[in-house]
């Protein structure tokens, strides 16, 4: 992901309308999770509103904190860009489409459940969304692979949660302090603008 900062261009100004619109479209087409790469594309890669260094900790926080990952991320990004009103605008943007779709579904769900062809289309959208997540994961793995300890932490988290299906909270509570300790600056020469 290192080369991405060179591609970034701060062209679009951050406005409430633009923020709402970004999260409205992401929310409307969110089937089966895996929204982080789409948010990253709109916020970091395309608009240059945030840098990866600010975005990636948000990805971890949004998943570790209680609540839905995608709404947490909307709050994190919105707050970073425009404070408390930005967080509210991003969150409401993210939920507008799903809320409207839910109301429509509440009236027509018996008919929708009877169409198997729709099941297939939704499964296809979900599969593509997992593919986007895979691409983002590969980038994150590459960013991480700069030391033995970070790689060990990454693999341990993946195995514990992905393979062994251990509960998220205890795994994160053990892995995070170890990982932070490993990254703790020795001497103080690295203290930069971060």
């Amino acid at each position, binding site marked *: 992901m290192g080369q991405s900062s060179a591609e970034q261009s701060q062209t679009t100004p951050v406005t409430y309308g633009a923020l709402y619109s970004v999260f409205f479209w992401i929310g409307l087409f969110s089937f*089966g999770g895996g929204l982080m790469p789409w948010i990253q594309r709109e916020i970091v890669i395309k608009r240059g509103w945030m840098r990866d260094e600010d975005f990636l900790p948000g990805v971890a926080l949004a998943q570790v904190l209680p609540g839905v990952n995608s709404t947490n991320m909307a709050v994190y990004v919105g707050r970073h860009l425009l404070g*408390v009103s930005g967080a509210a605008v991003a969150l409401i943007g993210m939920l507008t489409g799903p809320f409207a779709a839910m109301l429509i579904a509440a009236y027509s769900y018996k008919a929708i459940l009877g169409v198997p062809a729709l099941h297939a*289309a939704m499964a296809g959208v979900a599969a593509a969304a997992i593919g986007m997540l895979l691409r983002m994961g590969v980038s*994150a793995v590459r960013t991480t692979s700069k030391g033995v300890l970070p790689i060990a932490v990454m693999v341990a988290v993946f195995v514990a949660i*992905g393979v062994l299906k251990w509960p*998220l909270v205890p795994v994160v509570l053990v892995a995070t302090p170890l990982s932070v300790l490993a990254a703790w600056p020795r001497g103080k020469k690295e203290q*930069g603008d971060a």
Partner: protein
Amino acid sequence: MREEVSFGLLLTIAVILAPLSIASIGGATAIYAPLQYEVVDLRQWITGREFLDLFAICRFTPGPSSLLGALIAFKVAGILGALVAMVALYLPSSALCYAVGRIWSTHKGKPWHTAVEKGLTPIAAGLIMAGVLALFQLSGGDLLTGAVMVGVAGVLTWKRKMHPFPLLIAGALAFEAAYLLGYMARAA
């Protein structure tokens, strides 16, 4: 099935859903059991069959799976109930996330902040890849899902700024084609 919408009913909806907002760590799956107990067993707002139908419909509408709480509230108390449910479901967790994000950014540049930032990167990477595996298994873990996943990831490596719409639509079309082929095979 729809009771008289009273302030008491709306308050009950908020009281049921607000704790679930904070309880849903790592996805909405954690809230299904307590939600089912509250609305089906305890209060008998809907039947078990209706709960399953609404659960299924939430998988075919966009947005977080915890919207099931708002859908049930809509069945019980109409649009007002659904709006109260939305606030109860998403305000508590969002407020917490806001507070943590705020603490996070006010301490930017301090050595511990840099260390936590660096320390969280491998956690995020591990969680993302674990999420890929979990979603792949949830989707049935079949060859078609795997092929679409790898195909989409490959295209995004080639064109990183590509819009997701064509990719999502291509995924839907691939599955639709497979479904129709299977349908024709069964009919023949």
